[in-house]
């Protein structure tokens, strides 16, 4: 692969790696799944090299798609989400337990919008849906999260 393409992938890691990984944790509610999906996406980005035009968007999109695939596969295997929140400090654990009650689409939308600070347009580009769909997911997610998070307010 070209040096420019490798530099572009490294730049995404350096500038956005932490935000992407934590967004994936919010989406998957599992740091291990977040790590696996993100590593796979970066490895694929390195493999594609210069064929990727917009590395930022491609890596975010690939990470979420791979993570979504793993969640589906795990759901087929076990039928339920594990609860890895015990490994996390409070109040992250509270947040993750509340997020686990949402649908995957709702979790992806609200993680990208509320944590990664992406506009609904950018969220739509990453999730491969329309802005309108993102708005619906966000509204439903907020409605469900608000009472759950209020219960854990001090």
């Amino acid at each position: 692969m070209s040096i420019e393409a490798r530099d572009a992938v490294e730049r995404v890691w350096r500038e956005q790696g932490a935000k992407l990984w934590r967004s994936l944790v919010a989406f998957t509610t599992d740091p291990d799944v977040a790590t696996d999906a993100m590593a796979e996406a970066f490895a694929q980005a390195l493999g594609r090299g210069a064929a990727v035009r917009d590395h930022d968007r491609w890596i975010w999109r690939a990470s979420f798609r791979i993570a979504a695939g793993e969640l589906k596969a795990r759901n087929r295997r076990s039928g339920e989400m594990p609860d890895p929140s015990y490994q996390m400090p409070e109040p992250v654990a509270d947040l993750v337990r509340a997020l686990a009650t949402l649908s995957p689409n709702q979790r992806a939308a609200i993680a990208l919008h509320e944590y990664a600070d992406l506009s609904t347009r950018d969220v739509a580009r990453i999730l491969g849906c329309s802005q309108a769909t993102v708005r619906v997911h966000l509204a439903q997610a907020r409605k469900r999260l608000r009472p759950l998070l209020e219960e854990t307010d001090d």
Partner: protein
Amino acid sequence: MTDIHDRFRSLDDLDVPDVYARARAIGPKEPQEPRLSAARRAGVILLASLVAAAGFGLLLRARDREDGTPATTPPSATPTGSVAPAPLGLIAFAAQSRGSSTGLVIAVMQPNGTGFRQLTGLPGDRDADPDIARYTFASDDSPSFSPDGRMIAFVRRYTEGLNSLCEINVDGSNFRVVKRDAQMGEIAWSPDGRTIAFYSEQDGGIHLIDADGTNERALWPRTGGPNQDAPSWSPDSSLVYYASGGVWAARADGSGSRRIAEPPRPVGWVALCPEGSPIAFAEQGSTGRDGAIWLVDPDGSNLRRVTPAGSGNWYAVSWVPSGLRLLLVHVDGTAALIDPDGTNLEPLPMPAGVTVAGPIAWWATVP
């Protein structure tokens, strides 16, 4: 009051592992996106289709029992090609039943909230979609009326990330796919009926396509900067207005691109008044700050806010056909009407349990 955004900041407490080192250890890989097997996907599609159709149908029947309006009937599978539009006008929007996890569907109703009718997401249009057996339905959205009000163009999206430009008659008949793998965001049908402008996922710019799905071209080559989105036509179909950070316009042949307004916050949706002036636009809300609706004249002057502070988080805007009022959509899925001077804000009547996503299209014959 819990601030959800603040609660998400707690994620900053998590230590981030060296994922990049792990990616390098895996080594460069060819892309392998996880997918269901063909047989399983076909089963899921069939089941999802049945559940979606049944779920929304049950919702509508329940609503009909409540308010006494006629039950919604599935669309005819027989193409008619000539459907008289409702004399008082119709509004079309992407609808979702409250609490449903199924995707958006296209629905129409009278502007007074009566005659609600689900047009898509039903067996008739799904059977006529050649891709529904290959991909998983995600949503139908971005409806735009043909100039004669007889048809609605919209975008059908699949969870695999593909989408198609589709059309359907306003009575729910004659669904057809105009362009497969269209890579479209929001669309707008030109007033002369010849062209559809749309956000293109290919390059993040505005593209144009003939109404028959051929002759796609970029409005003007985008080489950088913010995405171009939310196109809106001038009444004579000569100009396309769009959002690209601020409010922009270009002639339909791509020449004369110019920035009209650069408000402090990014613009989400643009809608030109059917009279040709002013331009309404929605600024994107940000954390802790509601999105507001603004007006600006086509020469960039007379910028003024429409929605009062504290009136809500409005993210989409369109005009009533007379150009005398604005239609707003709130982030909670409700819609409202407001006068351009910011007075007379009132809810748009909606069937119980139905929410709106994206801007509302309103067609009517204007005397």
